[in-house]
């Protein structure tokens, strides 16, 4: 995994901005930021980020590759879109945050224990397998990702929500053994594989990774 990371470091040398432009979703917008700080001021999580969006953009320009890609910051984004709506330069900030998170993850240098990353991974594996979310499987994996004891505790905490979902038919009680998935699971998986190949080719990334 870090092999890919090495390859990128070699390829772009000092120019992290260029690397971001070429590999991160909407990355070519980064240079247009005028450092007004409106995004950071608008973000409901602003105070909790180590590096809020404005700072991330500056760090990219300053070539602080490791600090950015290994940071927990962009994983904090909840996609509320406040920043996009307010940015005077119309940067698609939310998308860039997710793009950066995704890129770091692909390179294998994203913070391992970041809960958002872990949730995203569980969610993706879940949905990519069957073409439809298996709520029970997802919940179980999520609650128990930090071990059995914590899992039981979380499950009890969330039991009323679970019961509600059960009642309204949003949760299949037999999901763990009998999840139906979508009609053409194979087709979906093939489609996702192809999409990944196309994207990697476009970006010049080796066909591998998570």
């Amino acid at each position: 995994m870090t092999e890919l990371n090495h390859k990128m470091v070699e390829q772009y040398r000092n120019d992290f901005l260029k690397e971001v432009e070429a590999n991160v979703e909407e990355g070519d917008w980064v240079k247009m930021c005028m450092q007004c700080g409106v995004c950071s001021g608008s973000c409901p999580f602003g105070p909790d980020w180590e590096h809020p969006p404005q700072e991330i953009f500056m760090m990219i320009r300053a070539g602080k590759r490791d600090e950015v890609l290994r940071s927990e910051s962009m994983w904090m984004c909840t996609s509320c879109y406040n920043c996009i709506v307010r940015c005077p330069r119309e940067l698609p900030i939310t998308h860039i945050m997710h793009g950066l998170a995704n890129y770091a993850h692909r390179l294998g240098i994203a913070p391992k224990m970041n809960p958002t990353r872990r949730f995203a991974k569980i969610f993706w594996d879940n949905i990519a397998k069957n073409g439809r979310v298996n709520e029970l499987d997802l919940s179980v994996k999520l609650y128990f990702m930090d071990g059995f004891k914590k899992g039981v505790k979380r499950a009890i905490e969330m039991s009323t929500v679970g019961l509600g979902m059960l009642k309204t038919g949003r949760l299949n009680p037999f999901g763990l053994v009998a999840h139906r998935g979508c009609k053409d699971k194979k087709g979906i998986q093939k489609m996702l594989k192809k999409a990944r190949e196309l994207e990697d080719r476009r970006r010049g990334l080796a066909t591998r990774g998570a």
Partner: protein
Amino acid sequence: MSEVKLGTYICRGCGIGDRLDTAALSVVAQKEGKAQLVREHDFLCSADGVATIRQSLEGGEVNQVVIAACSRRSKTEAFNFENVTVARANLREQVIWTQPDTPEARELTQEMAADYIRMACAEVKKMHVPAASANAGTNKRVLVVGGGVSGMTSALEAAKAGYEVLLVEKTGALGGWTAKLYKRIPFREPYADPVETPVHELIAAIGKEPRIKVFLNSTTTRTSGSPGQFSVDITAESGNTMTENVGAIVMASGFSLYDANKLPHLGYGKSPDVVDQAGLEALALKAAADGARIRRPSDGREVKNVVFVQCAGQRDASGEHLTYCSGYCCNASIKQAMYFKDANRDIDTNIIYTDLRTPGNGEDFYRSAQKKGVSFTKGRVKAVESAGGSLTVRFHDLILNDERATVTGVDLVVLATGQIPNSGMNIELKAEPEKADDGHGPSVEVPVPVPPKAASVLNLTYRQGPDLPQLKYGFTDSHFICFPYETRRSGIYATGPVRRPMDLVQAVEDATGAALKAIQAVENASLGRALHPRSGDLSFPSFRREGCTQCKRCTVECPFGAIDEDEQRYPVFNEGRCRRCGTCMGACPVRVISFENYSVDTVGAQIKAVDVPDEFSEKPRLLLLACENDAYPALDMAGMNRLQSSAFVRTIPVRCLGSVNTIWITDALNSGYDGVMLMGCKHGDDYQCHFVKGSELADYRMSKIDDTLKGLNLEPERVRTYEVAITDIARVPQLINDYAEKIKEIGMNPFKGF
């Protein structure tokens, strides 16, 4: 004028008739005002009302007019009579509209109105019809000093309007700074790329304009006279001097770049690869001429990595360098970064700024540079070091708060150093001040110009010094908002970066305005009329020679350098330069200066005409001397808004607080007024005084009146000066009421009835 025949016309319209007993006012006008003719009218400003006045004027029944109606600021068209003196009693805005409409208030309101009638009748008798100055200058040529874009634009605009122009340029070619630019910042859509400068076009246009005569390698070595009749020596490098007559002068002497040698920490002078913005333009021009890329001055290698340092020696809080922002250099650096990016996208260009200031459409230009890949870093550059054939820029990254941020491997550093004005010599820098001691009040310090570090631009022969007075940072003095073109020398207009830092677009606009001002000046001067701000005024000051003690006070205090001295040290008034503010009149300790229609007597008579009730009446009298430019309109507007104020105040408009002679104050207090308020414009560096120094001088004089008050055994609160702006509509009645309260507290003036 022969026999005085005073006609008083009292209007009953606009509610005046309902609120006041006009019949009683007529009696006041007749008995006390000594009016030969008194008429009341239901609607005086109507065609019929005006015709009534005209008939009595034409029939010879009347040769002086008092209009007791609305404010002198209202209905000026209707009540405009030629060759006759007119005084106005402001019964509407400042009497009925400031008093409550109640039966109890009627008595005081009526007393107020009666006083204003007495005052107007007294004033008009002291007034004379002003005749245009006999010394009008009729030369309509315009002299433009400076052949840069500002100067060339002024010259062309004046010529296009039909005026002859003399254009004097110190160097051997027209074009100024702009001729040294490779390209200019874009000035129209799409604001994306640098564009050609207008220099060649302008030079060609001047070549084709028969009304413009160009003097290259020449300077103005002597300038005397006044608007409409300046005499100027134009001296060529060879020493040849020609004397020319002109009507107005545009001074477009431009700017110099702040000297980068004062910035050794930024590497200037240490490495040839550190240049200022002019240095980069020279490199770009050379590259263009050679058909090559921009090269490093040190070894001629192509520049691959360039850093721009914004605010180099500018916006410096320590005060060691320029403290102001020149406003154009952010855009200029963006433009210069594009020189590189447009030639080769791979060249690293980094602009390090603290605040990127790209006003107006500069924002589009900024965005365009970002699209082209110019990097912008918010930081404060601390040092530029040279080692091993390249430069290192050390800066404090203000976003990442990294004190030790660096850019290494830099080929070229460009410093944005900013503009300093070429305004010639600072005539207000004082050497050993000369003392003017006249035995009347405090001594005046007469500023003596120090030997100039900078050579004079205009070499004026004025008593007050050879160049235009300066305001802040050496830029020529003008009012930034209200009258940006006016300098303190009538008929001489500063334009372009000598007035304030500016870019090309602003300079062109500015220069066009200056050409228009010059045209106004020559036209007004040829009719013997005042220029700004009493434009069209025919009155001018004169002095009674026999009374003058040669104290020099008027000469020194005239804000516009209008007064010179003759061999016997008597003042010489240059009417063309005079703005008719009356500051000299206020200054004169022996009161020998006056205008035909405004004098120590016209105001003094009003003060004395007011009926001052005795000590036991509980009716104090407050005199309010209000500047006619700001305070008086504010008072009128307070009336329009029906804001009530004390019925004990009597207001007299003055041309400027500077024209207030202290005799008025002492006379008022001696004759029983209980307090005197003076309302004038803000003074200081951000002054609003229409006559620049008038309100400041008034403030100074009033600060000295305390001694006089003490001598009379009066409280210092009896005289108060206020700074009032035209927008202080709600504040003025408040000030009056508070002051009335104050006077109530300290009690009546003990001089009543003496």
